[in-house]
């Protein structure tokens, strides 16, 4: 520890921290552009100058380590003059286009120029202009505004793990870019917009849309992947205009994946905004009363065991628990949530969650990835792995398609079943690495369980964990990586059929689909189908009654991420048209069906949630070890030789919302055929 005096305030900070951090510990604000807590120190903007006693010149506090007894001044004449000088230089080549700049109102340069700069400019010479660069369909560049802090270069290299940005040429001619023009190959490109302290990198879809002070900000949770990214939904007059990440060090730090950030324009398109009822084989617009009437008429004669319900990947916990109770009241346990057919075992929570926790990745000293591409399944978790690998040289073993670019160095062990069996037997060379580690962990992809031998894969993966020191009293190294925000909550609520039961089976006569994209061919021909959701695709077209539900930005709802972390999303805008919050729809239907459920408020539903599974009693995630080594049902030796197939579909259009999004459609086009798109640019 070092004792440092900042403007007369004495603080004790760990030795080795920078003067800037010591100043922050003392509560003094230090202006900065290039310094960012989560990136390496560059020290090139010189805005963080402070005076240190006995030092002849001001020092750049971000890159200067503290020393015991140091006296720092952050507001002396020398510092004020230094900052003014630096600001004057930064503004020399910066255009005066704030009125047409999208960063206006939330621009570090603007704010700091007002707070620390000179009140006028003495510069009369010519300014330089820089050609704009192409960085993909999401990031708009106005490179003349760039102050060359190199945050984006460091972000791309250190966090996203794609060293594609750089500073080429030098001096007056220095430019930030990819040099050879191309779209950045990262699923985290939106973060470049957040990290840029000026208006050089801004959001292309948000260009000229709004000013920050016009927006209503609602804290919520992203559900378009299973990370549970904490988000802020910015809205104006009932329309979502942009989504930004919130800082949560345990989950997403301050990053966010592109699909969650940019696909919200799909919330306005192809929406189910009114009830529909099928009349003579054709869906016709209807009122709520007519829709409920049709349901009541059909459900009346059907015995409970012939009714099924399927929850989709984006269903919220409240809707699912109410639907579960409705089915129970009707005498049915035919529930299903695994629309992808993953052989998940819901009997114990640690069989299907990311037990290590996302932050736990930083403690791991060996990692095995099985049948999963974390880069596309959860870019933010992948960034955490990238950080761990870069920081600690952690060995990463990968079982899956060969030649996949995970953004970090990894050891490809094999393609599929053969390798997994060898790992489970303890005869693979990577077993040595795992056994030598103190905190080994594995990540099992949900896709790996969708094969015919899914249960065996799950059992084999558990066996790998159990036999390689991953399951300890204070460390649980077995991790499932899910794909969407509603999947874990469904398992927590036991939204799976009892032994011998099934939600989609030939004997089913009525099926309730809660946003579930079930293949219409799998639905029994004569079955009466109710589709409740916000976007309709093939399953909705098959439905006999469509009930318009709310998307994740349009309801107060509980979400559980892949870790099993319970988080609350909040209503940012009201559902469009006649659409309603999902649990209310089911509650209303229960009344029509003569099985009135006793939930009259959100609190009542949440109380019920906690009663069904105590995990819903509070928010957050409790780190835990593994006391019981007994594995999930399934024969570990029955894993077939088949390779783990690459994830089907593309990252950009993985769910109903992003499939309705024009922005995501463009991304899919650009990243599927980058050469063709560049030629058109």
């Amino acid at each position, binding site marked *: 520890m070092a004792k440092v005096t900042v403007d007369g305030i004495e603080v004790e900070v760990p030795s080795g921290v920078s003067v800037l951090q010591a100043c922050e510990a003392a509560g003094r604000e230090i202006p900065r552009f290039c310094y960012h807590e989560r990136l390496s120190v560059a020290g090139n903007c010189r805005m963080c100058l402070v005076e240190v006693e006995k030092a002849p010149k001001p020092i750049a506090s971000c890159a200067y380590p503290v020393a015991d007894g140091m006296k720092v001044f952050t507001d002396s004449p020398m510092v004020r003059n230094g900052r003014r000088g630096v600001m004057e230089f930064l503004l020399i080549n910066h255009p005066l286009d704030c009125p047409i700049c999208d960063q206006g109102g939330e621009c570090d340069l603007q704010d700091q120029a007002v707070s620390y700069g000179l009140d006028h400019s003495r510069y009369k010479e010519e300014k330089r202009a820089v050609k704009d660069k192409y960085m993909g369909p999401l990031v708009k560049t106005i490179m003349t505004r760039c102050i060359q802090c190199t945050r984006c270069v460091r972000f791309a*290299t250190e966090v996203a793990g794609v*060293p*594609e*940005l*750089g*500073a*080429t*040429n*030098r001096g007056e*001619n220095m430019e930030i870019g*990819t*040099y*050879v023009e191309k779209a950045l190959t990262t699923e985290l490109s939106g973060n470049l917009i957040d990290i840029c302290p000026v208006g050089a990198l801004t959001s292309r879809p948000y260009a000229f849309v709004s000013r920050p002070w016009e927006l209503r900000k609602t804290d919520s949770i992203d559900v378009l992947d299973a990370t549970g990214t904490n988000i802020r939904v910015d809205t104006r007059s009932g329309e979502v205009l942009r989504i930004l990440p919130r800082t949560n060090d345990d989950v997403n730090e301050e990053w966010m994946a592109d699909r969650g950030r940019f696909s919200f324009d799909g919330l306005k398109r192809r929406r189910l905004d009114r009830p529909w009822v099928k009349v003579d084989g054709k869906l016709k617009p209807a009122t709520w009363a007519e829709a409920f009437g049709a349901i009541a008429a059909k459900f009346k004669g059907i015995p409970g065991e012939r009714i099924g319900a399927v929850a989709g990947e984006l269903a919220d916990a409240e809707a699912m628990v109410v639907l579960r109770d409705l089915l129970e009241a009707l005498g049915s346990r035919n529930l299903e949530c695994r629309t992808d057919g993953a052989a998940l075992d819901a009997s114990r929570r640690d069989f299907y969650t990311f037990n290590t926790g996302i932050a736990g990745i930083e403690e791991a000293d060996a990692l095995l990835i099985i049948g999963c591409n974390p880069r596309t399944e959860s870019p933010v978790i992948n960034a955490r792995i990238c950080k761990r690998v870069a920081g600690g040289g952690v060995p990463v073993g990968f079982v899956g398609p060969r030649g996949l670019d995970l953004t970090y160095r990894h050891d490809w062990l094999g393609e599929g079943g053969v390798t997994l069996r060898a790992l489970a037997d303890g005869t693979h060379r990577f077993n040595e690495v795992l056994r030598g580690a103190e905190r080994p962990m594995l990540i099992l992809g949900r896709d790996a369980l969708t094969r015919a031998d899914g249960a065996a894969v799950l059992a084999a993966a558990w066996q790998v964990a159990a036999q390689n020191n991953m399951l300890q009293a204070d460390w649980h190294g077995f991790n499932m990586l899910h794909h969407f925000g509603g999947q874990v909550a469904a398992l927590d609520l036991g939204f799976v059929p009892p032994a011998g039961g099934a939600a989609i089976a030939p004997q089913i006569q009525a099926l309730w689909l809660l946003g579930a994209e079930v293949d219409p061919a799998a639905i029994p021909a004569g079955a009466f189908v109710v589709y409740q959701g916000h976007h309709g695709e093939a399953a909705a077209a098959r439905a006999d009654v469509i009930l318009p539900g709310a998307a994740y930005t349009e309801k107060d709802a509980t979400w559980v991420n892949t870790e099993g972390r319970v988080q609350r999303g909040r209503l940012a805008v009201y559902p469009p048209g006649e659409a309603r919050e999902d649990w209310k729809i089911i509650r209303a239907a229960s009344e029509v069906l003569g099985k009135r459920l006793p939930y009259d408020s959100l609190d009542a539903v949440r109380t019920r949630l906690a009663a069904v599974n105590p995990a819903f009693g509070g928010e957050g995630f409790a780190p835990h070890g593994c006391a019981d080594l007994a594995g999930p049902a399934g024969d570990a030796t029955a894993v077939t030789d088949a390779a783990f197939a690459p994830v089907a579909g593309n990252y950009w259009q993985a769910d109903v919302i992003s499939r309705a999004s024009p922005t995501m459609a463009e991304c899919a086009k650009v990243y599927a055929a980058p050469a063709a798109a560049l030629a058109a640019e």
Partner: protein
Amino acid sequence: MTTPDTTIPFTQPDSFSFDAESNAAIETIVKRYPAGKQASAVIPLLYVVQRQMKRQTGSAWVPNKGMDAVAERLGMAPIRVYEVATFYFMFNMKPIGKYHLQVCGTTPCWLRGSDEVTRACKDAGHVAGFGQTSADGMFTMTEVECLGGCVNAPILCVDDDYYEDMDYESTVKLIEALRRGEQPAPGSVIGRQTSAPVGGPLTLTDVPGE
């Protein structure tokens, strides 16, 4: 300006691979650096690319594919090589003429008549100005900062060779010789021994016993 503005129309080659001579050079160069620090060899390797291009195409420049080849050989991200290559003006990012006339314009050379050397390059080489290439593609002229040969100023550096004590006439003669395909011996053009005084040594002329 890091790269001469060239009037030569050009396209980036589709591929680049090191030839036998380059591979031999790379092997020697990379050995100089400790294991794991191979990226330190990026500058010498860029020179290897530039020299190979000179051998193969007659123009010493570094194409994008050449930088990619360096990146691959040294296990670096291509952008890191682009950053280095564009930073140093010794690497030409576009094709240049057959001979690169680099006139030193820093104070000692300037005081000793580098303007005359420049004028001679323009007249004899038919080059319009700094950063330009002659119409016949023979010469590209650039102005460079101190070449470190101030004692024998002014200096004209042609590709890798220094020609010293230049004036208008000797520059014209040199350029005409180059145009004829000759390779005049580098060094002082007035017969000075290395950097000894003009006309011969003035000190240590009476070594005892000689």
